[in-house]
């Protein structure tokens, strides 16, 4: 008796099946990594006395319900906010112990003594729109990052934003400990001191 050979499976439709699956996954795919502005909220305890801050060390940003900016009692456009914040932080008006030897600002006595003392205070109305809030936050963070960028170029000949990206990248080949030390130095030079008051309803 002749052996009956097993009938061959027709694989012609395999491509169709694979295409069907492919299209399904193509449609459902969202290649997205979320990104955004990361912040730390202050802890809840109210036991800490608020420190006394000199008026010239404060950079007060108010945003009203119509999304208009008021910086130290002057109206300001959003596009000028970053520059104003940089001038304020980098002012270096202090003398003696408070002197800032890396600041390049004008040394105006009405602005901050030292980046370590410079406090940016942000206050919103409850009716401020979220996108305005994000825009202001973004500009203020950008002001700090621009200053750190400058110092990173001067001290290490690198870009601060690139260093931050490398530090966050798990696949980056390089000396992470050294990078962390360098980043810490830059962050200590221009610490981000952003205080947010509870929004209130104002007329």
């Amino acid at each position, binding site marked *: 008796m002749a052996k009956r050979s097993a009938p061959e499976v027709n694989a012609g439709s395999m491509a169709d099946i694979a295409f069907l699956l*492919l299209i399904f*996954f193509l449609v*459902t*795919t969202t290649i997205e*990594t979320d*990104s955004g*502005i*990361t912040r730390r909220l202050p802890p809840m305890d109210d036991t800490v006395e608020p420190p006394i801050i000199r008026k010239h060390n404060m950079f007060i940003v108010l945003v009203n319900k119509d999304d208009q900016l008021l910086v130290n009692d002057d109206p300001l456009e959003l596009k000028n906010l970053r520059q104003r914040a940089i001038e304020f932080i980098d002012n270096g008006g202090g003398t003696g112990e408070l002197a800032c030897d890396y600041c390049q600002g004008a040394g105006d006595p009405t602005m901050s003594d030292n980046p370590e003392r410079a406090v940016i205070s942000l206050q919103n109305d409850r009716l401020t729109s979220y996108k305005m*809030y994000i825009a202001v936050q973004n500009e203020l963070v950008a002001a700090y990052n621009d200053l750190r960028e400058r110092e990173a170029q001067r001290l290490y000949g690198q870009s601060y934003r690139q260093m931050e990206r490398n530090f966050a990248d798990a696949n980056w080949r390089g000396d992470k400990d050294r990078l962390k030390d360098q980043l810490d130095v830059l962050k200590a030079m221009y610490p981000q001191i952003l205080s947010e008051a509870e929004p209130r309803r104002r007329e």
Partner: protein
Amino acid sequence: MSKFKKKSGGGTPGISTASLPDIVFMLLFFFMVVTVLRQNTPLIENILPYADEVEKLEKKDRVMYIYAGKPLPRYQEQFGTEARIQLNDKFAEVSDIQAFIEAERATKREEIVPLLTTSLKVDGETNMGLVSDIKQELRKVNALRVNYTTREGAAQANLQ
């Protein structure tokens, strides 16, 4: 009989499609691997604002999502047009956030609980009042790491 027969027909030979399934499978596997199925169906309008000084949220398992914005038109009859919070496919109140965070924490491994980040996906038109209420609740449960999730773009783009 000549040894050198002229090749019959000048037509081009057909292209073999035998490797087509292989190619398609390769693509299929690629998309299967990179696919992240959407976790939440949005019930609200969620047009995120723009920012460019951003950090990436790399590890998905360390992120909790809180959505906020106006209800979508088909829910407006029931829920109104005021901005609402959405947690896990449901509309929620500000007071539900604490329970939500605790429940999320319970599903995570103990060692990553302190590293959890709350991603706030808030529509650009929302009022800050709601956002700061959310932040206040987060502070109460000590979930202090927040990420205002945004789209890439200059801050100026928010004003248009």
